[in-house]
């Protein structure tokens, strides 16, 4: 049934308020083809801390939500398009572009959901930013990009966009277990003069308003996000740094091992939600 048919039927009084209305409104189908999982069972490793996991999209205003339904409306897609150009450009001394090894960006579908990820050869946990820089410096003979540079944010947005709809699925055991536990410890630490932990807002108070802001569960499946407050793409570490700063704390540096551990832990809380990046948020 098309929207127009439904409207006509409703006007004619043939449809009572449908029982599924609330669920239907909550549906996010990007470009009429990518189904986004907005609610999923909480991962076992949360030990019941959340009854279910919910995308931050659910807590945004209808106007903001609508911008994510179609790429023509999503301001973050402009940056994805910029990254597509860079993808095909030879960048370093080796004369290679990303496409030289990886063909189309679409071939990277499935990468974003499993990051941050253990790199066996380097013996370290790598964010997507670190993996991109490894390609630039080790394969292409190019300069590394700044963690929070436009090139980097654009490229992570492109890699997210081609995995949209796939469930976040980061590993938390084996070689990353200690880092994951460090991230969990950070999540529950009440930092700063305001003595607030991530959990204070995003586990104990999601769904509540704090001043004019509707608190979400703080998942990272939508990153990098396009934020209206900065009218730009925002990386995960930038957001973490800002949140901890706002507890009146000495915050952590973008790209630090600390924020990388937090990135892994927070990502794991969202295992099962869809990749949404670039999502649109306040």
């Amino acid at each position, binding site marked *: 049934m098309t929207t127009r048919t439904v409207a006509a039927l409703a006007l004619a009084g043939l449809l009572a308020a449908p029982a599924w209305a609330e669920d239907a409104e909550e549906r996010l189908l990007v470009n009429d083809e990518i189904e986004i999982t907005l609610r999923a069972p909480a991962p076992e490793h949360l030990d019941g801390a959340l009854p279910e996991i919910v995308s931050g999209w659910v807590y945004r205003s209808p106007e903001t939500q609508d911008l994510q339904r179609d790429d023509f409306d999503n301001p973050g897609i402009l940056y994805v398009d910029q990254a597509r150009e860079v993808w095909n450009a030879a960048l370093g001394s080796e004369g290679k572009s990303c496409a030289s090894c990886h063909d189309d960006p679409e071939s990277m579908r499935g990468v974003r959901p499993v990051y941050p990820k253990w790199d066996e050869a380097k013996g370290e946990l790598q964010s997507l930013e670190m993996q991109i820089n490894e390609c630039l410096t080790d394969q292409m003979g190019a300069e590394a990009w700044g963690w929070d540079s436009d090139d980097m944010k654009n490229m992570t947005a492109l890699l997210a966009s081609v995995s949209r709809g796939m469930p976040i699925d980061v590993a938390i055991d084996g070689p990353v277990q200690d880092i994951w536990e460090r991230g969990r410890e950070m999540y529950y630490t009440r930092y700063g003069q305001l003595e607030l932990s991530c959990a204070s*807002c995003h586990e104990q108070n999601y769904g*509540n308003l704090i001043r004019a802001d509707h608190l979400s569960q703080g998942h990272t499946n939508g990153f990098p996000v396009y934020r209206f407050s900065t009218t730009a793409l925002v990386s995960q570490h930038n957001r973490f740094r800002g949140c901890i700063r706002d507890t009146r704390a000495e915050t952590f540096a973008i790209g630090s091992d600390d924020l990388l551990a937090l990135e892994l832990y927070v990502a794991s809380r969202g295992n099962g939600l869809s990749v949404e990046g670039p999502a649109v948020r306040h």
Partner: protein
Amino acid sequence: MTRFALILALAAPLPVLAGEIGPHAVTYDEYGAIEEPLTDRPGDPEAGVVVMTTRGDGNCIACHRVAALEEYPFHGEVGPPLDGVAAYRSAAELRGIVANAKQMFPGTVMPAFYKSEGFTRPGDGFTGEAATEPLPPLLTAQQIEDVVAFLMTLTE
């Protein structure tokens, strides 16, 4: 003079005005209430409204709904509504809760507004830079008394 100033700084890390009880000297009773006012000067409820509704001050309405402050927009839902709070809380209890609610409710999300040390990674305001304790408390003793005076007007 420099040395003199340094000694003064070491001896009195936070300026405490005469007739005022500093964050260290506050006595909480076994329930987390503070019987003795923090200042000699009685609290001013109108000044309390400013503290409660200003982002750079207490910003109490960020978390608490207060019908009497409806003209100030965007009240939060993180803490309980404060309507009628004076009907079931004494001034001593409210003073204790505003100063450091964790004395009465361990584990509460509410920040302590009259506490200067014992923080994890204390920062210099909202700069993200490190700061050395003791920090100036979030509110002054007089501001605490002003907030308590306003809360005591919320009898219904």
